[in-house]
């Protein structure tokens, strides 16, 4: 049984379709990455899943039951880590964790015990008595994450939990999240960082303009490009058009065409050396051809016509 299922979830704000018929599901012990640029609809999707927004259409099913049939029960098995540092900066790390534990329904004694465990797990025991306002950015992010874990949620929603922190702090948080997956927690992880999605997530959904454009494992998404490699051609294209090259579009899929650069993937199973020869023989002045494994950015490029990094 999946712990979370969204079924054609939609939300409109005026004329803007913030989320348009988004469906996916997450199993226990799985990290599902929702990858998309800012404004793609990731936070709106999470807001509907945790009950902050009511969907205009579609349904959220948590642990087999519709969310809105018993919101309090659904919320009690969820943990949510918001994008903002939604913690009390004047309180200490320990006080923050205990507070959110009590709000999540733990009794005082349980909250205290669990706080001690989490401070240890998050490597914050030494700073437990300091006010959070005196923490570094990475430590604040860890406390922000910890505040959602007091009641051992079966389903964890992480909305860009590593925004604005240094690489080392990010690695620490990602490692901690892997540990949660290993303990059987189902995790929805929204991000616009490609590397995080590639390294962390078991399955990835690519979202843009409110629509889920594709989903699958990293290799399944790479397969959409027709194989496990793409060619980056740097050349002076002048007025040349790929449509004019004889049979080119039958043998290559154009992922991106920009000024001075063409990114293509071979269609079907083909010998890379043969593909390279063909590209070098195109009727243009080729300056460089690079062969690389397709990244999520290439998938995003192919799906949306623009880079996620733009």
């Amino acid at each position, binding site marked *: 049984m999946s712990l979370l299922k969204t079924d054609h979830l939609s939300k409109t704000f005026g004329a803007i379709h913030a989320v348009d018929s988004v469906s996916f599901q997450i199993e226990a012990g799985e990290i599902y990455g929702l990858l998309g640029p800012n404004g793609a609809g990731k936070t709106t999707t999470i807001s509907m899943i*945790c*009950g*902050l927004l009511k969907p205009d259409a579609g349904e959220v099913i948590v642990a087999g039951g519709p969310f809105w049939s018993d919101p*309090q*029960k659904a*919320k*009690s098995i*969820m943990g*949510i880590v*918001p*994008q*903002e*540092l*939604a*913690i*009390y900066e*004047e*309180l200490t790390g320990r*006080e923050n964790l205990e*507070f*959110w534990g*009590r*709000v*999540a*329904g733990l009794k005082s004694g349980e909250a205290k015990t669990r706080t001690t465990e989490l401070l240890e797990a998050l490597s914050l025991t030494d700073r437990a008595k300091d006010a959070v306002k005196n923490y570094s950015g990475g430590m604040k992010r860890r406390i922000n994450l910890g*505040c959602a874990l007091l009641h051992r949620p079966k389903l964890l929603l992480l909305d860009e939990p590593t925004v604005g922190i240094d690489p080392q702090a990010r690695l620490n948080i990602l490692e901690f999240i892997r540990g949660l997956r290993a303990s059987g927690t189902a995790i929805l992880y929204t991000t616009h960082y490609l590397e995080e999605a590639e390294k962390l997530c078991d399955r990835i959904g690519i979202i843009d303009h409110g629509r889920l454009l594709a989903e699958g494992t990293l290799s399944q998404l790479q397969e959409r490009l027709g194989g496990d490699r793409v060619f980056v051609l740097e050349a002076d294209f002048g007025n040349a058009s790929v449509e004019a090259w004889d049979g080119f579009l039958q043998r290559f899929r154009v992922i991106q065409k920009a000024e001075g650069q063409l990114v293509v993937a071979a269609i079907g199973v083909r010998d890379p050396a043969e593909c390279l020869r063909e590209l070098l023989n195109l009727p243009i002045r080729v300056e460089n051809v690079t062969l690389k494994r397709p990244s999520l950015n290439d998938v995003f490029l192919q799906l949306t016509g623009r880079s996620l990094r733009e």
Partner: protein
Amino acid sequence: MRHVLHIGHTDLRLFLKRKSAYLWLFVVPFAFIYLMGTAMQGPGDPDNHRASVMIDNQDTNFLSRVFLDELGAQGMWVLSPTNKEAAARSIRIPSNFTSKVLRGKQSKVSFLKHEDSAEADAAIIEVRLVRSLIAMNGHILEAATHTDSLETINEDTLRKIMASPDPVALKAKFAGRKPVPSGFNFSLPGNLVMYLMMNLLIFGGATIASERRNGVIKRLMVHPVTKFELVQGKIYGLMLLGVVQILFFLAVGKILFHVNLGANLPAVTLTLIIFAWVAGSLGVLVGCVTASEDRVAGICVLASLIMAALGGCWWPLEIGPPVLKTIALWVPTGWVLQALHQLISFGSGFSAVILPIAVLLAFGAAANLLAARFFRH
């Protein structure tokens, strides 16, 4: 209910972690109570006001001691020469006071003026000194009727006569109007009400607005906490903050300013706690309908000053035109002060404040419902 208490207690802890809170909770109101109380000190309520008089008692015999007790009974603070500065006037009792009086001879008690002392207090002392002397003469005369000679009168006889009820007594009150609250009897409730309203509006409004900005409200709402519990928890936290301020200033009023809270202390406390609930509910409402913390401070200071002025925190409504009393009925500050003056200055019991308390509860319920209606993340 558990969530309400937990959220409220945490909010109180957060409020008290801010250093600026202590300034506005205690220091500034204390200064205003002291300044206004001192500036407005006058004859005030004759049942309550006690003018200070310094006694230079050179007589060591019993009649001077009895006389001092009579001065106290007539409503004067009797001070020793070490507290000379605090007195409005001095009374000097000569060393032969007892012996001369008991020999049936006149003894001169000196009444001395202090420079820069309040004229109103001096007048009260003069009147009460005359009353004390008349009373003393009466007691001595009555004692003399039981003995053969004045010289056989002793302290016990005289004190027994003083302790027995007067055969004829005159109770004087203002005719046709209520006395006007003054001094600390006025400045304590007036300033306490104003600063309770101001602090709870600002703390409530700013906290809600800032927690909405940094996502804490949103985070609370994704937990198994209902919107009702969240609103009530926030109001409860503000109420607790109000209770801290109330208890502090009731103690200060009683101990430092000698405000006569008397037997009405439970009713005074209850009235103020209900008012703290009203102000807390209004604070949460302001936070719900105001976009940012920056605006909250401006709106709340303005609103609380207007309500303080209209409600009678700055001057007694009794001295203003009737229209002011009508306007005061539209603000909670007016009702709470009406109740507090009844209890503190006019000596009324709980039954006299049932209506103001009912109106305050209605104000609180309305603010509560509106806060719940407009609460948003």
